[in-house]
């Protein structure tokens, strides 16, 4: 994390190597400029250098947006530091803009005085026009507020790779590695991991490998030998817990959490899914792991996706479906069937901006009430929310565990920000994973499909193929005792209560609500859920270090809430609930605990800036 220290502000042109506690770097260019690769490689070398980090790619919704356009700009932001990093950062300290469109769409975020590296080779009249510049910003003085380094990266790259027989177009493609080389020099990194990656990536194209390595080295050397020598930084390693680490994105972590839980539970994992942004990578990731027994079905639609998962669960496998908002709406009816038949099921909703098609590639937290309440009838399901990319692993794992133990569908809420964001993750060993108990079957004699465990109220899960337990289930109301179809009014009410109570009892196994920053009583409690964890955490820490009486509570368990939550809320004078919606958790807290929560909302398809939250906290405490 970047503490608010003086060295964070701007780039000073006097010293050779400056030690910084952290930095935020953004690479931005045209979709075809390879900025995601540059970002990924910069991330790898940063991780290997021992920094804590968080990353966030930002790419256009269009698959092949026309070159040079504003909506075709693709970006990748990384924040790294020598202490804990909780978010990919509000504003970059360094911006690399590969063309006029990238400059125009990203410049407003760059901190005053920040380092601005611009590829002048792309500043043609045509590109300036496409970006909507009436005058060339490189010449009109409009960039005076930043530390501008204007380089013809295109030309420098072509020169660097001229010894390799490539077309001009192919040679030009190496400019992302030239840029990477330069930035690796700026932050005192080595080239090793990038060279290794290039060699592996272009195993069958020695000429491409050679050219990219030449470009990479040339960028690095350019830093060493030119005017760049006045800006070089070193970010010392962070103090992180010892262990084996890797970088992981939210979507990958969700997929791994599911696989891990299936392995531990000794059940087959069956994903039914329909491609939808930003959840599709879960389908992609799980489809790679058939060697671990994972079955993935790309269904004909969202409804078939959840239905196939329900069918798999009926068959004794762990049925999972992954989707995003509009798909979630389509799955609603089938989710009711899973509730009525009391089958285990995991539904992953990687939220995006709504309503309707909305903002497919942007983030939002507006599906919370849908998850908790959005079905016909009294239809309770368990709802969990992941808070960081790495936390997606634990939450997916827990979702499977709850679904199996309590015989209930579990909705996991993630969002576009977590899905694509990445951070270092300490890799757990299989032995560390919590056990997932398998219940003994009851005696065959007198078996009833809706007989319940007295503690959890979960029914038995007996898959077809098990001799002697033949039974029928369905979406019609069932007799509480026999499990047969029943239209009896009193029985119906009893079943409604039983299903609600069963989900409520999940709370018995949850850790009590606990603040993660600050005292467990005081003037202000900031309550969040989901992907706002990093921003809220950092904002509350900053305010707390400034002596303000503020604490942070972050909820993973939304339905049911963890035990002790009501009492904890009562111990604070004020409760502030920042959300990327119009106040959905806030509404749940008010109705459940009768507490006067105060909302702080943003619905722009973007995460909170730490600064926004700091000022919201200050405002609360001042009034």
């Amino acid at each position, binding site marked *: 994390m970047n503490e608010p220290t003086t060295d964070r502000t701007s780039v000073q042109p006097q010293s050779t190597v400056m030690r910084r506690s952290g930095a935020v770097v953004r690479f931005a260019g045209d979709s075809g400029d390879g900025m995601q690769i540059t970002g990924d490689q910069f991330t790898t070398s940063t991780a290997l250098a021992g920094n804590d980090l968080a990353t966030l790619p930002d790419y256009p919704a269009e698959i092949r947006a026309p070159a040079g356009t504003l909506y075709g700009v693709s970006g990748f932001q990384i924040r790294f530091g020598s202490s804990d990093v909780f978010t990919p950062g509000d504003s970059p300290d360094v911006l690399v803009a590969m063309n006029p469109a990238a400059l125009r769409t990203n410049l407003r975020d760059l901190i005053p005085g920040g380092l601005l590296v611009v590829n002048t080779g792309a500043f043609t009249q045509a590109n300036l026009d496409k970006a909507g510049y009436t005058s060339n910003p490189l010449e009109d003085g409009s960039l005076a507020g930043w530390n501008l380094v204007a380089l013809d990266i295109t030309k420098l790259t072509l020169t660097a790779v001229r010894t390799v027989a490539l077309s001009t177009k192919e040679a030009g493609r190496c400019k992302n590695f030239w840029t990477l080389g330069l930035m690796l020099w700026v932050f005192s990194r080595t080239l090793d991991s990038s060279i290794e990656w290039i060699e592996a990536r272009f195993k069958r194209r020695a000429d491409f490998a050679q050219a990219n390595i030449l470009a990479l080295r040339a960028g690095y050397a350019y830093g060493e030998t030119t005017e760049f020598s006045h800006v070089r930084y070193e970010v010392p390693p962070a103090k992180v817990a010892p262990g084996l*680490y890797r970088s992981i994105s939210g979507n990958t972590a969700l997929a791994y959490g599911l696989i891990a839980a299936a392995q531990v539970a000794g059940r087959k994992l069956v994903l039914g899914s329909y491609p939808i942004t930003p959840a599709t990578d879960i389908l992609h990731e799980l489809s790679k792991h058939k060697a671990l027994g994972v079955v993935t079905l790309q*269904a*004909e639609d969202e409804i*078939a996706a959840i*239905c196939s998962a329900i*069918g798999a669960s009926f068959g004794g496998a762990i049925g999972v479906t992954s989707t995003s908002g509009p798909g979630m709406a389509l799955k609603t009816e089938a989710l009711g069937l899973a509730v009525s038949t009391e089958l285990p099921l995991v539904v992953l909703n990687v939220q995006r901006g709504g309503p309707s098609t909305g903002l497919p590639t942007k983030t939002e937290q507006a599906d919370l009430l849908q998850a908790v309440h959005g079905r016909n009838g009294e239809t309770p399901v368990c709802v969990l929310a992941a808070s960081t990319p790495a936390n997606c692993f634990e939450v997916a794992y827990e979702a499977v565990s709850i679904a199996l133990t309590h015989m209930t569908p579990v909705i996991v809420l993630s969002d576009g920000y977590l899905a694509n964001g990445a951070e270092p993750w300490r890799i757990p060993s299989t032995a560390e994973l919590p056990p997932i108990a398998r219940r003994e079957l009851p005696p065959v004699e007198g078996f009833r499909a809706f007989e319940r465990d007295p503690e959890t109220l979960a029914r038995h899960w007996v898959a077809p193929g098990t001799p002697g*337990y033949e039974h*029928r*289930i369905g979406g019609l109301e069932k007799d509480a005792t026999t499990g047969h179809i029943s239209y009896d009014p009193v029985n119906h009410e009893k079943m409604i209560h039983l299903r609600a109570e069963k989900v409520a009892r999940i709370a018995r196994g949850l850790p009590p609500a606990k603040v993660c920053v600050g005292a467990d009583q005081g003037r202000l409690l900031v309550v969040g859920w989901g992907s706002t964890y990093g921003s809220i955490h950092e904002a509350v820490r900053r305010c707390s270090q400034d002596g303000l009486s503020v604490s942070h509570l972050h909820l993973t368990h939304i339905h049911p809430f963890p035990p002790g939550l009501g009492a904890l809320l009562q111990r604070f004078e004020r409760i502030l609930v920042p959300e990327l919606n119009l106040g959905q958790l806030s509404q749940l807290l008010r109705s459940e605990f009768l507490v006067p929560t105060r909302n702080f909302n943003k619905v722009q398809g973007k995460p909170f800036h730490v600064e926004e939250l700091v000022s919201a906290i200050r405002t609360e405490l001042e009034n």
Partner: protein
Amino acid sequence: MSDLVPQSQLTRKDFVSNQDVRWCPGCGDYAILNTVQKFLPTLGIPKERIVWVSGIGCSSRFPYYLETYGFHTIHGRAPAIATGLRAANPELSLWLVTGDGDGLSIGGNHLLHCLRRNVDLRILMFNNRIYGLTKGQYSPTSEQGKITKSSPQGTADHPVDPATFALGCGGTFVARSIDVAAAHLTSVLERAAAHRGTAFVEIFQNCSVFNDGAFDSFTDKSLAAERQLHVQHGAPLRYGKNGELGVRLNPRILALEVIRPGQDGTTDADVLIHDETNQTIAHLLTHMPFAEFPVALGVLYAVERPTYDQGIAQQLETANGPRDLDQLLRGTSPWTVL
């Protein structure tokens, strides 16, 4: 399925559940249920390996009445649920019951994809050309112009033919039978049970309350011989009280024609021999304009094609990638913090 139960061990009674059957008196579903309950013991498959899945509608109550595993799901989605069940357990004998509304209206999309994937399961579509459970609205198989509560002036909808639909979707087994034709239905069910892949069986089923007599024009005993064409692979397409009528292919216009062999210069040799592996013939048979032609019954089309389940199983066996969890979680470029 290796350990089959000797057929003598199970009887009809073993497959009768303890639930009261709740269809209307005179409903064709009773006859189908009775035939199925008698048929299941002959399969020699242990009860626990048999699963009946259904959607919503009168026909979809079917699983409740069979002492096997069963899943009464939601409207139209049974094929999708069965597909997932199949993926979870390829050892089961999977049966699906649907109706013309459930399967071809709300669930048409899932039926299409189930058929083209060739998921290993048997689909019995009870076609009564009406919505029964919602009390008498027209269905996607109701004849155009049909007057119902929701179409007081007659429907404007052109109907879909279930067997034609199944063929068009790439179905590998398409057959037709009649609710009360126990022996015929049993023979079709036997073929369906033996088929690997999606076996689609349309059963003309009388709704005695909302569409009584919908199929009388060819199921009535007095008309059956003249209006039903029972197809048999390798046998000539003949019908009539004494087999005096036949169907021949007119190759010039690629159409079927009804002939009386021996008359108008035709002979026995002109009668088309049924080839159930010929999709074009199957298509022509499902499509014969009624009254001018009889209704084709029996196994109209049956071919072998790799099943969806086989494809999945094969991929699980041959897949590359990490083979244990620790290897997966470590990934390709982990780093150690000391």
